[in-house]
């Protein structure tokens, strides 16, 4: 505001200053109190219920105590139906001056937080501790690491992911006289399956889905060779690939400094065709009208045997088991191939807030969180897919299913992270609105033209 304060302050400048003063009066309490709390508490945000966050806090505290005897871990649970809800609440909390030290955030929020400089690059920490992290990098798929990079820098250490696979009810397939789909199945096969499953009864839908960025009609869009935004990669990242993956250069061939989301392509021919495919499923009564966000309703319908197939990731192993489904009553296969076998995934990991005054300790906790033994403390009961391949074992899925659990990790090959640019929240809002519009009107092209216009506005920041 310094440019409006001068020796000869005119009326306009005075009015501006008055306005700024009033605003500052209102905003002062919000902006002034930055920082991350008392010196003996380290705060972490967690996407979930506070009861789960508190339980997590109790389980992690002994490990934090090993790092710093006096330090108390405080985990705050944040509820929401989807990641845009979570991010909105995180940003509100930051605005209120209670920025945490650590955050567990998924692909959806990575570029948003990195672009706003809310998170710090972990490059120097990783370089410093590379030897102790080597076993981690040897164990985790580079696609997950790359998805946590932005403009050549690494902002999070990933520990989990979910790739969009196709879950199916074994009971309904059996009733329809169908065998388990093969790994090489196509969308034509999928349609045949859907038609036969729907014929099993009037209260059965062959397929259901949720309107959201991850695992929505977007899975069909990816399989159709398209995307909502132009795909590209930032340069940089060699500092990591050439050191952490020096013994396995083939695995990191073509990797860059993170995914660069370019111009919107929401109304491309591939997108229109993919959305029309889903609308046709609904018109043919093979699929009901989808819900927006979350997936709790869908989970209830699937577990009660009213849905034949749906898109899910490793999180559904625990989700369906917890909903009462027995091992063997459901299974999973790769997402069917359409014009390509490209599929999508989203990853989760841990980052450090720029405002943290305990960055070094926060880094030690981040390293601790990606250790194999921390995974089941953080995610008990298969509610997500482990990022470390060594944790993907038959024993892990023996009590929950599915039998074909290896699909989760295998599908990472050739898959692309969900297109979550820095303006993810605006993108998600438009995606939800325009998709529901397309479904209610049946006009995919008009809705996607609107989505394209929304995205173009969001790219420009208006």
């Amino acid at each position, binding site marked *: *505001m310094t440019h*409006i304060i001068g020796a000869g302050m005119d009326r306009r400048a005075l009015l*501006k200053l008055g*306005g*700024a003063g*009033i*605003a500052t*009066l*209102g*905003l002062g309490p*919000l*902006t002034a109190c930055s920082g991350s709390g008392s010196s003996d508490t380290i705060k972490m945000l967690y996407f979930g219920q506070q009861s789960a966050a508190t339980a997590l806090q109790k389980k992690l505290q002994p490990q934090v105590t090993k790092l710093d005897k006096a330090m108390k871990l405080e985990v705050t649970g944040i509820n929401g139906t989807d990641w*845009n809800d979570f*991010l*909105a*609440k995180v*940003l*509100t909390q*930051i*605005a209120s001056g209670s920025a945490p030290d650590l955050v567990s955030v998924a692909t959806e929020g990575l570029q948003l937080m990195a672009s*706003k*400089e*809310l998170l710090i690059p972990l490059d120097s920490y990783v370089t410093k501790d590379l030897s102790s992290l080597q076993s981690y990098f040897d164990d985790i798929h580079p696609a997950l690491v790359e998805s946590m990079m932005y403009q050549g820098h690494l902002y999070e250490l990933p520990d989990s992911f979910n790739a969009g696979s196709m879950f199916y009810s074994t009971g309904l397939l059996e009733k329809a006289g169908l065998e388990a789909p093969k790994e090489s199945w196509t969308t034509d096969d999928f349609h045949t399956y859907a038609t036969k499953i729907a014929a099993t009864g009037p209260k059965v*839908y062959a397929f259901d889905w949720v309107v959201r960025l991850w695992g929505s009609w977007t899975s069909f869009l990816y399989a159709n060779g398209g995307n909502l935004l132009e795909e590209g990669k930032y340069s940089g990242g060699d500092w990591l690939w050439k050191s952490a993956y020096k013994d396995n250069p083939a695995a990191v061939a073509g990797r860059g400094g993170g995914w660069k989301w370019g111009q919107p392509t929401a109304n491309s021919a591939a997108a229109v065709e993919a959305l029309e495919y889903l609308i046709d499923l609904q018109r043919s009564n093979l699929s*009901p*009208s989808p819900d*927006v*966000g979350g997936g709790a*309703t869908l989970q209830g*319908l699937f577990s009660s045997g*009213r849905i034949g197939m749906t898109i899910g990731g490793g999180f559904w192993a625990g989700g369906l088991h917890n909903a009462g489904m027995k091992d063997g009553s459901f299974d999973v296969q790769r997402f069917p191939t359409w014009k390509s076998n490209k599929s999508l995934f989203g990853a989760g990991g841990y980052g450090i807030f720029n405002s943290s005054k305990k960055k070094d300790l926060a880094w030690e906790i981040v390293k601790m969180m990606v250790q194999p033994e921390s995974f089941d403390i953080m995610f008990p009961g298969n509610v997500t897919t482990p990022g470390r391949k060594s944790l993907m074992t038959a024993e892990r899925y023996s009590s929950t299913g599915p039998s074909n659990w290896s699909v989760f990790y295998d599908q990472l090959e050739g898959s692309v992270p969900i297109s979550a640019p820095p*303006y993810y*929240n*605006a993108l*998600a*809002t438009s995606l*939800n*609105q*325009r998709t*529901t*519009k397309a*479904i*209610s*009107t049946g006009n995919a092209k008009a*809705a996607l033209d609107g989505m394209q216009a929304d995205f173009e506005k*969001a790219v420009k920041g*208006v």
Partner: protein
Amino acid sequence: MSTLAPPRSGNARPLRTDPGGRPRRGTRRLARREAGFGFLIISPAVLFVAVFTLAPMIASVALSFFSWDVITPPRFVGLDNFERIVRDDAVVSSFGTTLLLAFGIVVVQLVVGLGLAVLVNQRRRPAAKTFFRTTFYLPLLASTAAVSIFMGYMFDMKFGVINYYLNAVGLPSVPWLTSTWGAIVTIILIAAWQQVGFTFVMFVAALTSLPTDVLEAAAMDGAGPVRTLFGVKIPLISPTILFATVVAMINALQLFDQPFIMTKGGPGTATTTATIVMYQTGFQNLQFGYASAIASVLLVIILAITGLQFLAARKWAFYR
């Protein structure tokens, strides 16, 4: 010197005045002291309103002249945010949706509230009156968020109980929340259902306190129940109707919970109200200045509509 008559009971001292009728100096001091005590008594409430209502309102209006993303310091942009509103189809459309929903909610709320109040007022047994008053008021006490979640399940096209019974009598499932007009009508009905208790209770109180002599005169003149209702009762309770209309309209123009929870503002933007756009703009897109400008425009719209209601009431509200 004159002394005002003392009160019939209590220990309050009579107010002493000088020959000119003005309070004496000692009396003035007492009055000042009593006024000070009065201010002291109401100060917590005033402070509460100032801190939690007035200050945020002023800050919000001031913020509408800034660009602010929470993370970087606010930047003064003058009237840019307001100019942008005019050009922003999504925001303009949300104001239209808000007005449509608000009009529907207020009409249903008033008509149903008045109808129920008239019916309950005709009950002779006090127990029946108490039962109906409590029953119709109960939805107002429930959490709007909880009601919206519950109603979302009830009106769900796939497994909602409403469609279950429609199917049971051979009717097809209705896309209550997934078609444009289905969502608009459902949101209106649910919001009105929850708020109807408020207007109902006010109308019952107004109808109960109607002067019996006027009603008896109408009866002696041969007016039947319908004529009495429209020719006598409704005109007599018109100030209550005005108050109920104003309050209901102000509430309805700020509609958020029901469409946000039940339809997420959809399908498309069919139920996206101005408050939902404010939330998305501010808390999701981090454009707090622009969101505040939308809030300021909504405030002006609410004030304008309220003013219009009072102006129109001069023609139809009847004050005895």
